[in-house]
């Protein structure tokens, strides 16, 4: 147990949490300690144990110190254990709860189960040795320096102490936030499991589930942020929320669309709508899902996807094919035009200007001259003058 060091429990930059387990007792070899009940965290770099009652009590050992690990099955009245054999502590190890130990191994007792998964993930981390390729930040160094600095002049000590306390307070806040977050995630995980089970039932029943139930289920998934391919396949990702959103969008976008020649790219719409909202913004997926419902809701706008994958919103009254005829005239007047030039002339975004010219080409009205000097469009004389 002399290999452990005190720690804030904060993960450093570059260090990622892999797994955690509550209800773990720490023993020094065969001797029981006061580390009776804690949360054991496995990161890419360390094994961390935090006391469940006293969050301040937090110790860690680098994974690089581990020689090998063994499993000990549970018995009557005994929890399953993992025995961790460690290298001797290095001389520059940070201070910890024990200066010396007669054992070169520690035991982790899993009073609330979880030993199997933990053993598996710990083995993986020890094998992969991710800590070697992911250098961590200097978080630990700061603490060390401030402690050494205490030897300096008396007046400064008071200020330093205050800073140290403030730092501890922030660390404590973050540690607490992190602990609370872990608890929250456990509950969220239960929700995910439940939704999977329901989704499987739906899959098995293949349409014996009512539309009403499907709508409810999809809104639950939306609230939790769970994607479910089963329902998406059969009924699409849209929900009641997206239907309402689609109707709202139809109202908001009518004027902007008219001002922009009847067509806007989805990124333009995203920026426009969210800038106007200020708060409770739409996610990109919300916008796309709502737009996909425009047509079926018979609203005056529609979503259109060009061959290139570019997505736009058009007024129903807008006819891109008619605009192509006008584009052809413009190009003919000038002899030839690139997307940039056309965009400037007509007052459109380059993205949409290019799409219009490509569509005109697809319809046979324009020909391209594709060179390193750029993509230039000419009226298709093969068609008109043959």
């Amino acid at each position, binding site marked *: 147990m002399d290999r452990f060091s005190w720690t804030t429990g904060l993960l450093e*930059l570059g260090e990622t949490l892999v797994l955690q387990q509550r209800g773990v007792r720490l023993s020094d070899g065969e001797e029981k300690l006061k580390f009776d009940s804690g949360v054991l965290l496995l990161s890419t770099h360390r094994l961390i144990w935090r006391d469940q009652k006293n969050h301040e009590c937090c110790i860690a050992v680098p994974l690089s110190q581990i020689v090998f690990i063994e499993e000990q099955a549970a018995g009557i009245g005994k929890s399953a254990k993992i025995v961790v054999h460690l290298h001797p502590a290095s001389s520059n190890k940070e201070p910890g709860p024990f200066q010396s130990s007669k054992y070169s191994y520690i035991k982790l007792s899993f009073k609330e189960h979880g030993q199997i998964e933990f053993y598996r993930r710990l083995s993986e981390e020890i094998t992969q040795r991710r800590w070697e390729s992911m250098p961590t930040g200097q978080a630990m160094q700061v603490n060390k320096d401030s402690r050494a600095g205490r030897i300096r002049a008396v007046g400064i000590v008071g200020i330093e102490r205050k800073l140290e306390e403030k730092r501890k307070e922030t660390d404590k806040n973050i540690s607490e936030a992190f602990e609370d977050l872990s608890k929250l995630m456990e509950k969220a995980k239960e929700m995910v499991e439940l939704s999977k089970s*329901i989704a499987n039932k739906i899959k098995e029943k293949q349409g014996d589930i009512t539309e009403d*139930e499907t709508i409810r289920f999809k809104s639950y998934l939306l609230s939790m942020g769970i994607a479910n391919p089963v329902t998406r396949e059969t009924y699409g990702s849209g929900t009641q929320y997206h239907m309402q959103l689609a109707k709202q969008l139809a109202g908001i976008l009518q004027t902007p669309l008219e001002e922009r020649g009847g067509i806007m790219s989805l990124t333009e719409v995203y920026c426009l709508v969210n800038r106007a909202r200020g708060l409770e913004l739409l996610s990109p997926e919300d916008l796309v899902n709502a737009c996909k419902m425009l047509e079926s809701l018979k609203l005056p706008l529609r979503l259109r996807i060009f061959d290139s994958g570019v997505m736009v919103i058009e007024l129903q009254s807008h006819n891109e094919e008619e605009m192509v005829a006008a584009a052809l005239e413009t190009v003919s007047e000038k002899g030839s035009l690139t997307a940039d030039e056309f965009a400037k002339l007509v007052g459109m975004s380059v993205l949409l200007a290019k799409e219009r010219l490509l569509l005109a080409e697809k319809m046979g009205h324009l020909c391209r001259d594709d060179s390193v000097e750029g993509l230039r469009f000419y009226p298709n004389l093969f068609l008109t003058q043959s």
Partner: protein
Amino acid sequence: LPQAKYKERGTVLAEDQLAQMSKQLEMFRTNLEEFASKHKQEIRKSPEFRVQFQDMCATIGVDPLASGKGFWSEMLGVGDFYYELGVQIIEVCLALKHRNGGLITLEELQQQVLKGRGKFAQDVSQDDLLRAIKKLKVLGSGFGIIPVGGTFLVQSVPAELNMDHTVVLQLAEKKGFVTVSEIRQSLKWEPERARQVLEHLLKEGMAWLDTQAPGEPQYWLPALFTELYSQEITPEEAKEAMP
């Protein structure tokens, strides 16, 4: 008739589970509210906390950014942070597209976004930007992330960039430019293949041709200019530098 009975039973089972989920959802909402009342600030203030939060969500199979209507967004404000960032990213990329053809390094994007956010705005990490960009992909305007060297290039135009293009971009990342010979040497390609890739990048405006370079023509990536060669100077400094 027995068929109908079985069907009914089947429906009842789903109804039960749905009711259970509805109840648990309410409980979860309360837990999340409690969490938010104590720690909502952490999300906005700490990039490290955001990373941990996102990783944990990913581990359990939850996407907190899928919808602004999700609990995570509504109560933690996680959504607003990233969706607003999305808007800022789109605007920066649009403003610089004429110069770099729609390719920009993650570093430059971060600098420009931070500038736009102003002095008192929250810190934005590269991880934050990457997550926001991943969400923007769904809008169809060609947002993508290309790993190069130790960092990333962010694409913001619907130009098709396949493996060949990406590999050449990665090669060019070291010095900011690349030549046909270098490509042939490093990648062992036929000259025609190298030329096609470079031509495509030129046409898209992502590469500029320097025919006056000693030896052979050099293909430069303006996306890398700021990173490697230029400094931001003020108008006063520029005036002084002129003869």
